[in-house]
């Protein structure tokens, strides 16, 4: 198996299994996996597909920085975050946040925090391609 990059922006489909295997160490009793998935509607309007763009050279270290922010707040173990870019069909995974910790509460809280921070500061943008053919960047 290829070594896992814990923080990555990629055009390839995302697979949680290698990330779960990467984060888990014998001291961890909890592994939380969050998957953000392309959804077929937004604000009541049907969506055909999504596309994502990133400032990749910066986004990758920002993901690592956000994980360090979480580590400063909760006693957690390893963290992995992969974000996909390019065109995503409905049902495909756009982002995976995987957090290991000795106990579940910290793993849940850290995963939620990391996802919130990605949406605040990670230079990654989503474009909604509506079913009627129009498209707009989510801001």
């Amino acid at each position, binding site marked *: 198996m290829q070594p896992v990059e814990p923080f990555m922006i990629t055009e390839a489909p995302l697979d949680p299994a290698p990330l779960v295997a990467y984060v888990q160490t014998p001291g961890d009793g909890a592994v939380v996996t969050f998957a953000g998935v392309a959804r077929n509607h937004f604000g009541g309007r049907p969506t055909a597909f999504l596309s994502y763009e990133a400032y990749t050279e910066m986004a990758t270290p920002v993901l690592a920085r956000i994980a360090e922010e979480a580590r400063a707040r909760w006693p957690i173990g390893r963290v992995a975050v992969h974000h996909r870019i390019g065109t995503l069909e409905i049902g495909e995974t756009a982002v995976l946040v995987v957090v290991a910790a000795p106990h579940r509460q910290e793993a849940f809280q850290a995963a939620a925090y990391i996802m919130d921070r990605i949406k*605040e500061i990670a230079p*990654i943008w989503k474009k909604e391609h509506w079913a009627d053919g129009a498209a707009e960047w989510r*801001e």
Partner: protein
Amino acid sequence: MITVRVRLFAAHRDIVGRPEVTLQMEPGATVGAVWEQLVAGYPSLGRYTGRLLYAVNQQFAEPDASVDDGDEVAIIPPVSGGVDRR
């Protein structure tokens, strides 16, 4: 004069029609001045003023940070689903 590369993303790239532009600035110019010069050339960018993050050479930067010759300045429009800008 100094030369800076300005990286543009998402809606900004659509408005400007290119993923990056090169601007000539006065020595000691700030990140905010780079944005103002961009808006002067592309007035429809103006509605983003106050809703942006900036980076210089891939590090977050405040609007009053100065830029140097050869710097890569990134204008970071609101990110997907983000509401609480910081």
